[in-house]
Each structure stands twice: as structure tokens, then as C-alpha cells.
């Protein structure tokens, strides 16, 4: 994750640099929002107003887009992101129990984050790795065939900084 705060830069400057050279066409709006999400990790009111001005749309409309698509977050996100796939193949292989176990260990409901421990827990739509489910993605790293026992190890890996995982046999 790139958004270890804003690297000391001021948000308007980051947004300014992302807008540089980008034609203010409506069709570039979602591309721009992706860039902001990647660089800043979330959208503050300030950014919404800046984007609305640049693309000549109302702030309400931008807000509507941000809340419609799951890629965009309105809250500051965390150092560690845990995503549990909830595709059908993962579901029939027990991903629901995996989510519950993460919830229990982290004290977080899906969609919540804990700024104190720097972890967010998300349940995501199918990641398309259906033959090796249940799949969990921690900070971009894929874990295949996760079983409920391994959840604790993954969570422990977050605090020690290493995520060793032995893939279970098929």
C-alpha cells in the first residue's frame, strides 16, 4: 500500500499532481478517482470539492459515484488490508466460517477497520481464483485453500510482519 499517510505531502498538492495533464472530460473522472484512492487511500471532503470543480460536476454527483462503487473509500484506510473472497466457490468451501474467525480474532465486522491496530477486514466479491478457494488476500498477497485453523496464523503474521503460509494439500 502506498498510502502511508500522504508521505508528508499536502492533499491538495497530491490531487493537483494527479490532475496535471488530465483532460477534464467526464470520462476521465473514474480513472482519476482510482488514482486518488491509490495515492491517498480515501476521499476527504476537500478532495471531492477539488474534483467537482475540475470536472465541472456537482460534489453530490461525485459523492454518488464514490458510494456506488466499492473501490472507493470514504474513511482513511489501514496499513493492513485483509480481504476474504466471498465468491460462490469459496462460499461452498466454507469462507463464511473464515470471515467469522477473522471477525472474532480482530474484533472487527466485515467492512470495519481498526485504526489502533491498523487492520481493515473486508469481504470481497469473487477474486476469480475459484479452483484454489477459500482465498484470502492480505496486503495484496494471496492465500490459497485457507482453513479456519490458519486464520490465527495469518492474523499473527500481521503483527510480526511476516506472513508465512503453507498451502494445504488439495
Amino acid at each position, binding site marked *: 500500500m502506498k498510502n502511508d499517510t500522504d508521505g508528508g505531502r499536502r492533499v491538495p498538492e497530491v490531487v493537483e499532481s494527479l490532475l496535471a495533464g488530465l483532460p477534464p472530460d467526464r470520462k476521465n473522472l473514474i480513472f482519476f478517482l*482510482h488514482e486518488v484512492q491509490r495515492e491517498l487511500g480515501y476521499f476527504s471532503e476537500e478532495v471531492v470539492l477539488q474534483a467537482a470543480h475540475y470536472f465541472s460536476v456537482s460534489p453530490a454527483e461525485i459523492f454518488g*459515484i464514490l458510494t456506488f462503487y466499492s473501490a472507493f473509500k470514504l474513511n482513511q484506510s489501514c496499513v493492513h488490508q485483509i480481504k476474504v473472497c466471498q465468491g460462490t466457490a469459496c462460499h461452498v468451501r466454507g469462507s463464511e466460517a473464515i470471515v467469522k474467525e477473522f471477525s472474532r480474532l480482530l474484533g472487527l465486522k466485515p467492512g470495519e477497520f481498526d485504526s489502533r491496530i491498523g487492520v481493515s477486514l473486508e469481504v470481497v466479491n469473487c477474486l476469480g481464483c475459484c*479452483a484454489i478457494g477459500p482465498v484470502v488476500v492480505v496486503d495484496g498477497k494471496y492465500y*490459497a485453500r485457507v482453513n479456519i485453523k490458519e486464520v490465527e496464523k495469518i492474523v499473527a503474521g500481521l503483527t510480526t510482519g511476516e506472513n508465512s503460509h503453507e498451502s494445504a494439500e488439495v
Partner: protein
Amino acid sequence: MKDLKTAGKGNQNGSSSRVISLSAASCGQASGALEVASAFELAIKELGLEGKVQLKLTGCHGFCQLEPDIIIFPEKYFYPQVKAEDAKRILLETGVNGRFIPELGFQDEITPNGISRLEEVPFYQDQLRWLIDQQLDLDPLSLEDYLEHGGFEALESVLSKLSPQEVIGEIMASGLRGRGGAGFSTGLKWKLAREVAAQPKYIVCNGDEGDPGAYMDRGILESNPYSVLEGMLIGGYAVGATKGFIYVRQEYPLAIERLDKAISLLYQAGLLGEKILGNDFSFELELVRGAGAFVSGEETALVASIEGRRANPRQRPPFPVVSGLWGKPTVINNVETWANIPLIIKNGAAWFSKTGTDKSKGTKIFSLVGQVKYSGLIEVPLGISLNEIINKIGGGARSGKKIKAVQIGGPSGGCLPAELFNLRVDYESLPAAGAIMGSGGLIALDEDTCLVNLALYFLKFARDESCGQCAPCRIGTQQMVTILEKITKGQGELADLDLLEKIGLTMQQASLCGLGRTAPNPVLTALRYFRHEFVEHIVEKKCEALVCPDLISYVIDEDKCSGCLLCLNSCPYGAIEVGSSGLPQINLSSCEACGLCSSICPEEFQAIKKISGKDRQQTQLIPDGMN
């Protein structure tokens, strides 16, 4: 073009060398393909095999369950689940000497000695892989390699020999139908768009593969991106479009990365941009990254999303071929449809239409997953029976339990029971049975799957992904979820089943777009074929599949228990205590049925089992919060 080809040849090694093709699409990488790749690279250097053995990182080989796998060419030796420590041995034995190592080969209980060649592996038999076979030894990032494999020959021949009308005629004659699910004739769609006078026209590739449990398009985009782009170029020429968009869902970062690179290489090579291959045909292509909304896959919603708006579907007609992007004629086809285009042009419509049934031609890729023994991406001729797919290619049930149903078509599709496995997989037979062909998700379900729970799963999905514009979908999905939740908790009534059907039929008829019209299908087919499971939940308060947490309990079998107390120490809810016998016992009133104890109980004892039928009055840890 010729220059590009020679450049490609220059990069190849001598003809006597072997190519080790390692599957490194997302599934492969999740299973450690990159670590294996570094081990091979290092070993090639250490052993001084540069020029003798070439390692190639390719996309998907299809057998995703046994990733990472390697195929060694030219013999096509197949090694599944390759480990880094075997790199040297494989390089020396097979890479240099051409000797197969049986114990590293594919084996199962029927073929214990290790099968050497890819075609002999049961999973690969009975398939017809026009698209997937192209991926087996193709470097997805290398334009040279694609050209080397005959890439862009179709575009070249189209531009030099065929008029746009002739191209459309060829695609129509092939009988190709949209692989996204609806099955509209691709050629006819192109013809309609061509006949509209308005300019400019647009081409769109719909890569918003949202069905949970399906990943055919990811496979193609990650493994052979140029084939899709070539198809789009041919479509652009035929329709008279000058600009194309390829829309990929953001959940597929590797596909996006590879496409991005492929597109910029095509611009560099002059295969995109002005006057392509010296012809009077110019075409621009832009990659658009989805932002995470299932409904974006609906074509009018896709248009809105590309235009930079919320992906709200709108009423059709007008269809996008008449009024799509910015009100202009727009041809929207699915990834797999586009990938088929160069194939049809190269081999001819007559060749293509020889495979398949009367009305459904060619092959189709399915993601065969769930409780089958062998899962992965398969490509089969249309008209094949479900039986052949599940029991021959998939090898039947993986657990030794019976496969009781197959879920086909994702949240828009349905569950078909094993009694209907003689059904042919094509655009006509499946809808007749209440399912749909869909984009290609096939999820095998065994006796451990509860159909009520699965119906609830799909309806929750549809509820969360409904855009909310129209009442039948917005309210209908929520009502169905509420009723199904009641049933899975053992609090349903028989009258609920009629109500579910009534709501479902209303949604089918009155919803604005395909999402709402098809969302009830998983429930309606489950009611049609598995009504007894619903009745059992309602009347007997039982979940025979032992899935619904409120209707099951965990118990410790004292005859098997060794008294190690691992379960007691691990129980998150303090629900296990030592009983009078000195052995642990589960206190059902505080047990949350999470199953942790059962997975922690050592394999040699397996003393904790699930049983059905307890009327559990408990609150769930995450009420209705799974999505």
C-alpha cells in the same frame, strides 16, 4: 508485419532446446509460481543451461487446482504442483535429457504411476481447447511471441482481403453467439451497428466478469491478451468504428497490468493508432478499470460506467448498437467472444460451425469449480452433456460424496439436480430447465452444500449489488433475503415458499434490467428441484447438509476422544468444558457452531462431529453482515 515476425524469430533459441512453460496467471502466482520461477532461473544459471532450456512464464494452463504446473515442450510433459526444490532435478532429467520423472507426474488412485503427457491427464481429455491451447506456451506479455504463434494474421488478412461486409458475413455464418451469457448472434450485432448511420461508432470489450465463482475471462485476459485486442480490431474494421474500450473489473489487477502493457506495445508496433499495417484503417483503444460494482456488467450500465457515471442500467431499447456510448452506435461483446474472432477468420466460418449443436456453435470455456475432484478452466464443445463435464473432466465428487447439483450461470442462473446431468450445455437446453448458459460458471455441489443456504447466498449478493433504481429488484431481493434467513434459522413457514415464488415471478417480469430479472433464478430453481430441502428446514428444523449454523450442533464422540483438550483450549466461546468422564464436552447453549474445535481435533481422532437437528436459539456473531 514481416519485420515484426523476423524480430520474433531472432529471440528464439535453437530448435533442439526444450521450453519449460510455467503457469503464472493469478491462480498460479497465488500458489507460488513466482517462487518456483526464481528457483528455475537460478538453477538454469547454476547448471549453465542457458540456451539449452528456456523457462517461459505463461498464463493459465487450465488445471488451476494443481498450480503451479509446468508443461515441457515439445513432448508436453506435465508436472503438477511443482516445488522450487525440484527445479534442478526437472531441469537435468527432463529439460536436458528428455526423461520424464514419474513420481513428479500427475497421479490419482486410478493412475498411480504418474502420467507423463498433458493429453493423458484425465482432466484434459474430453475437452476441445481452441482458446486455452493457445495459452499453453505463450508469453502473455510478449508481442513477438504472439506473432510467432500466428498472431495478427487474421487482422492482416481481413485488412488486405476482406470488405467490412464480408467480415460480418463470415462471423454471421460461423454462428458465434455472445459468450457473456445472453447468446445474441455476434455477427448480427455487428451488422446492426454497421447499418446505423450515426458516427462515430464504438467497440467495447466487456471484461466486467462479475459472477462469483467464474473466471474464464480473467484466464483469457491474463494469458492471451493480444487475441482479445486483435478480435476488437477486426470488429472495429467490420463495424466502422474508430475507437474501442476494454473494461476490466478492478478485482483483476494482473489482467489490467498485462492488458495495459499489451496495448502500449501495440501502439509502439503500429498495430493501434493511425493507418494500421499501412491500410486506411485507424483504431484507438483505451483500457478502463472498473470500480467494483456487479451491475456494471449489464451493457447499458457498462456504458454509463465508461462515460464516468454511476453504473445505473437504463431501459432498453434503444440497444447500445443504436445508442450506446455518448449516444452513438456501440458494439459490446464479452472477452471470450472477442477472443474467438481471430480464430474464426483464420480457420473460416465453416470450420467453426462444424463444432457444436444446431444453434450453438463452437466451444465454450467454463470455470469448473466447487466440490469436483478436478477443478479449473475447461473448454468444451457446445452441446456436451453436464454429465461429461462433471463426472469425466471433473472426475466426479472430490470427497467421495455424491454430487447432487450443479450451479450454472452464477447469480442469474440456477441449480440443476444430478438427475438432469444428461442435459446438453447450450443456449437452448439450459434455459428450458430454468438455468441459463451464463458466462461460464459451473459450480459442482455435493451433499455438504445446503441449497437453502446457497439460495440465500445468491440473493444477498443480488441485494447488495442491486443498483436500487427499480422497486421490484430493490425490494424483491431484500424480501427474499428476509424470508430465506428465516428459513435457515428454522423459523420459516410453508406459506413462505409460495411467497418466494410470487416475489420471484414479479421480479422476473417487472425489473428494469437483467440483474433484477434473473436474480430470483437461484431461488426459483432451488424450489423447483430441491423443494424438499426447504420443507425440511421449515417442518423438521433440520439442515441435512449440516450447513445452517442455527440447525446444527457439534458433539464430541467420547469413544474417539483421547482427552487431549486441544479443543477446550481453542474454543473462542468457552463452550467446551471437562465433563464427569474427564473428557471434554460441548455446552450447546454457548456454542456458536464455528467449527474451530472440529478442525483442531487431531486427524487421528476426528472425535468432533456435526449433527443435524438441534433447535438452536442463539444470535449469530455477524447478523446479516456477510456481504
